């Protein structure tokens, strides 16, 4: 009995030591901040402020959050924001180094060309287009962009139910565990990674796609859908114009490559076309990154998505994709 007790004690101590070793590794491999409910409503949540982050599960990047809990490390800052950027994990850019995300690169371009403009990103993981439209008014109120509000999306076809919730103000807010036991567990990087691995394992077991999916859904375009979409875009455009700025939606679908290495050309589905039509109708600028991404691939053999530790062309936007987006936005804003 005594032997068993001593062995258990040894095992417990060894387990703790192993956890410390694993946690130390995670500091440089998977160290994400904890998120908190954003009471201002500009986003559903914000990250720990001034937090060093590392991520090696998809790409490898070191980043830092700013005083508001978003990823903005461009050294030059203005009192006023000229361009407010909203978006998902692609915009947030935890997969690329802090000086490689498109907001940083856009600001660099402004500075290099002597333009007194400043872009600020509140891009946050899990914030798709509809979630950002839900938060649009609060975001514009808080940051008061002088010229543009840009919303990034990988998807321009939606569920009717989601559109209904958006228009009726019942679109669900993402939950944050900012207190209690789960909050404490999140502070331990290794546990955070295990949770991510577990979720990914369960998703793959259920044959769900883990990456943000740009795959088109072939929903039928009904009158109800058009009406709901119209209302959503009209409201967003009005909110932007009321605050004195232009709403820009940029769409970044992934590129599919065939056996011979050629880009598979995709036509818009009817549902997607209806989104573009609605944008045109209410003066929302729509930028489709497909052509720019294709041109980049055809001239440099570089795909805008994927990293050196993932399948090529899938997952989040990589540094080449970010550079391409920054150039496209810059050309649009300066040209337009």
């Amino acid at each position, binding site marked *: 009995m005594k032997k068993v007790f001593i*062995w258990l004690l*040894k*095992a417990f*101590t*060894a*387990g703790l*030591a*192993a*956890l410390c*070793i*694993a946690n130390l*590794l*995670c500091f440089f*491999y*998977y160290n994400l901040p904890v998120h908190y409910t954003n009471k201002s409503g500009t986003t559903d949540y914000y990250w720990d402020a001034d937090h060093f982050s590392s991520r090696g599960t998809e790409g*490898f990047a070191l980043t830092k959050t700013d005083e508001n809990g978003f990823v903005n490390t461009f050294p030059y800052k203005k009192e006023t924001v000229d361009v407010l950027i909203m978006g998902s994990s692609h915009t947030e850019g935890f997969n690329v180094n802090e000086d490689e995300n498109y907001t940083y690169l856009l600001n660099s371009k402004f500075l290099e060309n002597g333009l007194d403009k400043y872009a600020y990103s509140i891009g946050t993981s899990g914030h798709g287009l509809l979630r950002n439209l839900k938060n649009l008014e609060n975001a514009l109120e808080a940051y008061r962009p002088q010229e543009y509000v840009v919303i990034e999306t990988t998807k321009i076809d939606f569920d009717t139910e989601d559109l209904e919730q958006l228009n009726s103000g019942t679109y669900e807010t993402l939950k944050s565990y900012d207190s209690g036991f789960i909050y404490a567990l999140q502070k331990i990087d*290794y546990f955070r*990674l*295990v949770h991510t*691995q577990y979720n*990914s*394992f369960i998703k*793959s*077991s259920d*044959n769900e796609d*883990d990456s943000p999916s740009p795959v088109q859904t072939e929903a039928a375009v009904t009158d109800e859908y058009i009406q709901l979409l119209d209302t959503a875009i009209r409201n967003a455009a009005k909110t932007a114009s009321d605050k004195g700025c232009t709403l820009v939606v940029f769409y970044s679908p992934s590129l599919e*490559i*065939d*056996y*011979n*290495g050629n880009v598979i050309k995709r036509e818009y589905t009817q549902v997607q076309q209806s989104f573009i039509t609605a944008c045109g109708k209410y003066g929302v600028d729509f930028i489709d990154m497909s052509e720019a991404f294709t041109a980049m691939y055809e001239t440099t*053999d*570089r*795909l805008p998505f994927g990293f*050196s*530790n*993932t*399948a*090529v062309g899938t997952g989040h936007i990589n540094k080449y994709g970010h550079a391409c987006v920054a150039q496209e936005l810059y050309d649009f804003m300066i040209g337009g």
Partner: protein
Amino acid sequence: MVFTSIEFFVFFLAVYLPILLFNLKPLRNKLSEKTQLSCKHFILLVSSYIFYGWWDYRFCLLMLLLTFVSWLSAKNISQNKHRRLFTVTGIVFPLVILGFFKYFNFFVDGFTSLFGIESAGALNIILPVGISFYTFQSMSYTIDVLKGTIASHSFSDVALYISFFPQLVAGPIVKAADFMPQLKKNEPLNLCDLSVGLQIFMFGLFKKIVIADNLSVFVDDVFAKPLAFSSLSVILAVISYSVQIYCDFSGYSDMAIGVARCFGYNFRPNFNIPYISKNVSEFWKRWHISLSGWLQEYLYIPLGGNRKGTARKYINLLLTMVLGGLWHGANYTFVFWGLLHGAALCVHKLWLTLKKGKKSSGVITSAASVLFTYAFVCVCWVFFRAENFKTAIDVLSKMFIWSGGINQIFFWSVFSIVLLVAATAAAALKAKKEGKKSVNGYYPVFDLNKISGLIIFFSEIMLIIMFAYTGSNPFIYFQF
């Protein structure tokens, strides 16, 4: 049920704990040795059928039928009743089963295309998991009884030998002569076996879900669209595949060896650092040792081996390797892979005959031989991995005609190559330290009674969870 699932973890406990009850003194004193042994074998047999039936319960019926025929054949052979008839039955029946489930459509397709027949009505046959492995084991039992290497055994022993769950679906192919004597031992489960078995299992798990599965992402990408990638990426992908298939299959073998060890059974290692082989003959002594041993003992030697003249020796070698290739799958790419290896073995044998008596074992010559053998094996892997000849030719043309494309220097490829080289260097150092001539692989097993051993073991588990590939990726050899 696969070793890398949560179900298997529960299953393992559900099998191990009841057998552990036989360690209790009251039970040991109360039951006779024979009864204890029978009970343990019964638990293992039932659990092996549950393990196999987890895929499809109908597979169990097939395995049961095969077991019955093998048992009956061997029993009659040993009693000298219709010896010839039962020899043929014991060998041909498993081959017919294997041929029907694995090769029926392959041969029908070949026949229809040869004679230009539009359709001969291909059947929708489900390939039972691991059929190639357990049919070989059942034949091994019959042949070993025929040769007198072992005596015939009871039906339950034969059933356990064929269905024993650690090696059931992807080997190693355990010879009856190696396994049957172990069934007679009635040793209680012990902590030493459990500790060693778990560590070997974890070692295999690391190879499978950290190395092989992460590499599969890149390899699958390149083999799906080889012309999209640069030559450098394609070469890296082929090297990655060589590492992937090694870690996938040897990882499974290690897990099987580890699980069997937990229950007190010893299986021989199935791999022994194959990529340091100086020639193809050595490669086959280090790669999938249980299959090459099986093919040598039950195919090459019965065909005549090298006893019937030079020409027959080469024909036998070629035939053995072509059939070995076909054993892997019903596709001409596997046949061609086997043919390439067979031809290489013939060339090597010829070379040995030509340079008889001359010794050449300088460091540079040895290094060049290792590199050349590895390069040859990699080229052969292209045919093994590609779904058809077109893809294989496209991959090879990309490898040998330098051209551009997507340049993907995959992190896990670089990491695993560095790791493999370091592990090989460690094995070489160990061999040197121990004064051994040849470098052999070994399992890094620590004393789990010491805190340092426990820290290493727990760290290994945590690192496996940390870096594990979480997508779905079945074992490559399950398809065989």
